């Protein structure tokens, strides 16, 4: 129920006094209300829940976390090389 899906804003327009966006979810385009993200712009990724953009995807944070998670692996390989073993992959 609390699911929010990341999508890319492709267009912004006013509709009946409400700021609305067209959001592309991997090829599927849906309308989303932008009233809660006044700073969101075309090209931004946003999390959409029941037709409302509730937060902007912070691309820097996403890249930072991803980088950190990849480093876990390098650390593991390093340890494996030192100890001559590694963890099994489930």
């Amino acid at each position, binding site marked *: *129920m*609390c*699911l*929010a*899906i*990341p999508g*890319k804003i492709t267009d912004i327009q006013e509709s*009946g*006094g*409400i700021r609305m966006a067209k959001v592309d*979810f*991997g090829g599927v385009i*849906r*309308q989303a*209300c932008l*009233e*809660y*993200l*006044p700073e969101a712009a075309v090209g931004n*990724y946003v*999390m959409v*829940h*029941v*037709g*409302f953009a*509730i*937060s902007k*995807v*912070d*691309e820097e*944070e*996403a890249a*930072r*976390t*991803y980088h950190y*998670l*990849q480093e*876990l*692996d390098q650390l*593991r390989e390093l340890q494996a090389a030192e100890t001559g073993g*590694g*963890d099994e*992959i*489930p």
Partner: protein
Amino acid sequence: MKYLDEYRDQRMAARILGEIRRTVTKPWVIMEVCGGQTHSIVKYGLDYLVPEPIELVHGPGCPVCVTPLEMIDRAHAIARRPDVIFCSFGDMLRVPGSRGDLFQCRAEGADIRIVYSPLECLKIARANPGKKVVFFAIGFETTAPANAMAVWQAQTQCIRNFSALVSHVRVPPSITSILQSPANRVQAFLGPGHVCAVMGYREYEPIAARYRVPIAITGFEPVDLLEGTLAAVRQLEQGRYEVENPYARAVTRDGNIEAQKMISRVFQICDRSWRGIGIIPKSGYRLSYEFRDYDAERIFEVESIRTQEPPVCISGQVLKGLKKPNDCPAFGTQCTPQTPLGATMVSAEGACAAYYNYGRHLTPANSMARA
């Protein structure tokens, strides 16, 4: 899809699992708060993949599940009126009340419509001026801003034939009530990522400090869930109890201020009854006095409807993390998604329904997958 596929990556999941395995030394009980998280955990079997000493228990965060039976009965009473068009998110339609569900009401002639967004109700209201359009406004803080916007717009645009049957719930009082229970087993939480996208996580900081529980704000994809679990396990092993935010790509400490403003403009905090659990003080939102003309409970005078739950069901204990679905003798026999006896079986995000849908009623669960 960007920001989705990479968080379903098997190799990435394996890396984090390896790190969890290296970190954990003691048994820990960790609760994921959100029903969507429960669904992902069971779907991907993450509770089987995490190392043995870690037990994942499933929390109360499925709003469809915890909507009290009497509220469902009130919805049915309103929906059956010939002058009403009743609008709801799809998940609420098959939740049984005392007599059938909303699908059955619809089969018997009620005008019931599934909406994707609450704003659609306003269009329906404008297109049907002779009808009363009622929206079943349920959900946690994630959904509250959307539902509040529908009410706010109805007032701004003077749409008089729209009202909302509000049964909103809030996460922090529910996890506090779990921690206060003398039987509590939960030692850390995977915090509700999208609730916090709206509310931020400041209100979780005093909970973490007071009850000495780590809270890791967590997303909904397998990699997110394992990352949250790793953050919680690290804190538990190091004796720390802080709010940590591994889901920083979607959540900030302050959350969405505009959305919070709309929530407090339209709603006020109230005590709320949770299906399977009972009344939790200050755990809900209702329409504030200024919006009383949009309150369906008041308009249709259904507040007096009271209902009793079937006594056999253990969903209250499942929602508090005290029991697992397969601890219940009725699970998968008397109680199935087609014939649910209680809260956690009524929605796909409920722990019992997730266990059932992924076949866990068929085998003695833990021993098989862990072997």
